[in-house]
């Protein structure tokens, strides 16, 4: 079992996808790169099925909201190759006003609830998901509470202003 380095992975990815792989870096040794919404499923399929690393395991799907950015929602995938003992993080920045992205349930059944959770909290619509309902919050909630515009505390309370706590 030969180990695979991040450089070899990046090389294989750029050979295959060229300009679709952007923003490559390695915070704390974990290979991280961005790609576009149109190519995400191809990238994930390639990562899952290629012979260099064989990322057989979907560790996690989540999202991050950056309200000041143009494409304000980052959908973050963590993949893991148990064979080569290497992890990779893939990010896709999507438009906050039309947060849609193809589903990864076609590749891993594990993606089902992870995507439902991401939809529940960030409103990201995973196109082709078989059962995209809220999962932890009640169906009547009406908002996607992890978006940054929703405050943690009741905004009407005068004793719990965030600036008093420096948050």
């Amino acid at each position, binding site marked *: 079992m030969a180990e695979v380095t991040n450089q070899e992975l990046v090389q294989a990815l750029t050979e295959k996808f060229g300009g679709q792989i952007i923003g490559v870096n390695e915070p704390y040794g974990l290979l991280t790169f961005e790609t576009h919404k149109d190519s995400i499923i191809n990238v994930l399929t390639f990562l899952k099925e290629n012979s260099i690393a064989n990322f057989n395991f979907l560790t*996690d799907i989540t999202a991050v909201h950056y309200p000041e950015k143009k494409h304000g929602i980052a959908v973050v995938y963590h993949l893991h190759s148990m064979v080569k003992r290497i992890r990779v993080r893939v990010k896709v920045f999507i438009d906050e006003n039309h947060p849609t992205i193809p589903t990864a349930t076609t590749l*891993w059944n594990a993606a089902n609830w992870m995507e439902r959770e991401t939809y529940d909290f960030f409103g990201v619509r995973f196109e082709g998901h078989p059962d995209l309902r809220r999962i932890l*919050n009640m169906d009547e909630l009406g908002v996607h509470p992890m978006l940054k515009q929703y405050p943690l505390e009741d905004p009407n309370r005068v004793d719990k202003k965030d600036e008093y706590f420096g948050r």
Partner: protein
Amino acid sequence: MNHNQPVYTDNDPQDELVTLNLGPTHPATHGVFQNVIQLDGERIVSGVSTIGYIHRAFEKIAEHRPFYQITPLTDRLNYCSSPINNMGWHMTVEKLLNIQLPKRVDYLRVIIMELSRIADHIICNTIIAQDTGATTTFLYLFQFREHIYEIFEEVCGARLTTNIGRIGGFERNFNEIAFTKINKFLKEFPVALREFESLLNRNRIFIDRTAGVAAVSAEQALDYGWTGPLLRSAGVDYDVRVSDPYASYQDFDFEVPVGTSGDIYDRYLVRNEEMWQSLRLIEQGLEKLKQEPSDIFHADVPEFYLPAKEEVYNNMEALIYHFKIVMGEIDAPKAEVYHSVEGGNGELGFYLINDGGRTPYRLHFRRPSFINYQMFAPMSKGMLLSDAIINMSSMNIIAGELDA
């Protein structure tokens, strides 16, 4: 097996199916979550899992708390093994801050984490036995969870939601009573565990109820994101302690037990064997501690490690650091980090994004119970109701970790 479909069925022209609400507060679920299942006689035709009954918005709260205030939130994820969650979170922050810990702290952590793993597995395995009708075994082994909690109490003052340790180490050194209690536990627990195994491992009723029930192949387990004892029982030797060693697990000699068929009996055996391995780890940890200076229980990082109270009252520098840490004004790099530990139920991951503010910009918990549990409804199709109940106990779904 592709069950990516909503699993209600309307194909019931003669109105023969019975709809049963299993939960939210049903004794067999061992937690607050609901399954609406349709039964044809004793067989499950379809089921829908509804979760979120104790959702407490930890990820949102975490965005408004400085790092050290997030530890009590992690207590309440898998509350059967809180120390693993606490230390997983501490190690995530230490990774972000590039803190190197003294070996003694790592070994102390391993001892506490393995004790909590035993506590976690005691709960799961005794409850499988309980649900198959063997109350005696439950009572025999369960008292040792109490002994483990007494050790935690000696180390940190709390029992269930421990808030054990600090960023950079422990809040205080282990006292003599703690070591005495650990040694006493190491002497008494193997006897009880052996007795527990002799009551169940070759027990005809137990084997009939568990062997071959709810078998899962390695491919299915990986496809559904299973980790921990569940994945290992299906034959995949993945353990975070070995694949990405943290807290000096690479210094220890232990084995990763794997099953073959992924059925309930294998899960039970894997968890039992892990308890034996945890005992080995604790013994080795105690042995290794003898080589280390006995007064070190935290790293020398005053900017990040909360000083002792008497220091704060008498020492200017300690007061400044105390103030800065409590107000969340520590200098943490603007970066993102993923760290995972082997929790009682599998890979417990922390994805932390820090933007240089006083609180995390984003913190996401990869919760093994949440991800393991999504196979429950699809795999229950065609199963007997009584088998599905044991299947659920053997998955060790902890509602706190399920809902976060």
